[in-house]
């Protein structure tokens, strides 16, 4: 039997209007849950991207002792350049290091004032062809006169991401729980809508309405609630203050300004469409759960 679309649409609209309060509640819960879930996924995505980018950009730092002679320094630079694993070597003088330091701690003048340019070591910044070869370089340079310390800054990045990983996993599971809660709430609103109309449904079934005929307006109602909830969540994410707040919860690297953790609008659009689809899925699931008990007559 053909189910008339205009009938179904009209019924859903009437239902939503009649149960405005609970409908708004359901929409908000879907919105909030998708906002939380979506932010968790967005952070995950942005973090993975940042991790890739940063890891590919950071270098091995070879810090030099204060008493290194110009000859030793030239020799070291030549040796580094000659190594097959090395892609590029740049020298950073004490003055350059100090400049970078000043830029980094621009908002903490006390630290800058208490540090003399001399206190910062000069270094070679070594970019490896394959970042995994750090061990080889370290073994070769360790203990060499004039070398103070060799540090793989990739490691720093990794530790940084590891520190925020638990937090990200937690927020992801939170989102799953709220997702389930939203589904249950939609089921409840649908159930209430059905309850307030059970007489009507009883008559519908008595005069020979099929189950789908009864079901579809309610399902449509659930889908509309989920859809609006999804749009609400995306709209919240698109607010500039929310986006910058979200970006600020990501891992931040203190030593470089070029590595700013960012959730971009592109990310939000990408995950937003997914969130809206998820909202509609919540609506369908919720209404199916809500309807299950009422239709076996």
């Amino acid at each position, binding site marked *: 039997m053909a189910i008339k679309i205009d009938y179904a649409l009209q019924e859903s609209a009437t239902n939503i209007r009649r149960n405005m309060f609970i409908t708004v509640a359901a929409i908000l819960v879907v919105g909030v849950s998708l906002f939380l879930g979506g932010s968790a996924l967005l952070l995950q995505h942005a973090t993975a991207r940042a991790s890739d980018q940063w890891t590919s950009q950071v270098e091995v730092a070879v810090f030099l002792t204060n008493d290194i002679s110009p000859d030793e320094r030239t020799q070291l630079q030549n040796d580094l350049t000659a190594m097959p694993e090395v892609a590029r070597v740049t020298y950073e003088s004490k003055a350059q290091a100090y400049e970078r330091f000043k830029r980094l701690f621009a908002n903490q003048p006390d630290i800058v004032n208490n540090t003399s340019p001399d206190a910062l070591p000069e270094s070679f910044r070594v970019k490896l062809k394959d970042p995994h070869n750090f061990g080889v370089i370290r073994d070769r340079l360790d203990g060499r006169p004039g070398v103070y310390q060799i540090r793989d800054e990739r490691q720093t990045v990794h530790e940084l991401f590891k520190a925020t990983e638990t937090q990200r996993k937690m927020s992801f599971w939170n989102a799953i729980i709220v997702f389930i809660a939203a589904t249950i709430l939609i089921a409840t609103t649908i159930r209430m809508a059905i309850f307030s109309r059970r007489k009507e449904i009883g008559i519908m079934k008595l005069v*020979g309405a099929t189950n789908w005929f009864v079901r579809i307006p309610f399902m449509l109602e659930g889908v509309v609630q989920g859809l609006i909830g999804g749009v609400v969540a995306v709209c919240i994410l698109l607010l500039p203050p929310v986006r910058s707040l979200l970006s600020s919860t990501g891992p931040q690297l203190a030593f470089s300004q070029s590595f700013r953790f960012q959730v971009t609008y592109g990310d939000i659009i990408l995950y937003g469409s997914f969130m809206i689809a998820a909202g509609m899925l919540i609506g369908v699931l919720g209404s199916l759960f809500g309807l299950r008990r009422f239709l076996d007559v």
Partner: protein
Amino acid sequence: MPTLSPSASLLPIPGGAVQIGVRAGAHMIRSVNITKIYRGNVVALRDVSIDIIKGEFVFLVGPSGSGKSTMMRLILREDQPTSGEIYVAGKNVAQLATWKVPALRRNIGCVFQDFKLLPNKTVFENVAFALEVIGVSRGVIRRQVPEVLELVGLGDKAPHLPDELSGGEQQRVSIARAFVNRPQILIADEPTGNLDPTTSIEIMKLLDLINRRGTTVLMATHDHAIVDAMRRRVIELDKGIVVRDQERGVYGYGAQV
């Protein structure tokens, strides 16, 4: 196997394979040894066999708890018998697949004691609802609803809400709704239970009119006066057993010839 009743055997049987259909053409409602036991060993119907022929008007009488309502529920497939078979409009309802139940119910109109009208829909909408639900087009609805409202004598009440009508008028609306898609069977469960005697007679005249148009009517009732006045077939149930099945009967044993 139950024997064919005389009226059925008069019909030509076109082919062996469709025998059941032919028999059902004569037997609108036929139950064969149905027993219904509810949970907790409550026996609602015990070994009940009833034949109702197309075009008949049948009263189902008996005290509360005698199994009248259970019988109605089984016919509508709101419930299934514990054992036995029940054929309604040619279909074995006891074994009917769930998805076929809507099609069955489109052949059966229902009228209840409490009218079961939707309070927020007008008279017209209440009747139209029964057609909308089964996917009838707007044009047909616009034609058929006024027609049936005219038939039940409420042609001028179409735009009113149910609570603006008297009880008798509301019951007419519910009869209009039950009859609007011309079902083969009309089932009425205490349709005059909430109405005064004068109004009840009006309702019975209407049901009689519908019956004369070819619809088989099965009416469960407590109303002695009506049963005695109508002089139609009476099936009496007591504690789930058929204790009387009488052509042109009256309500009580006392009046039996």
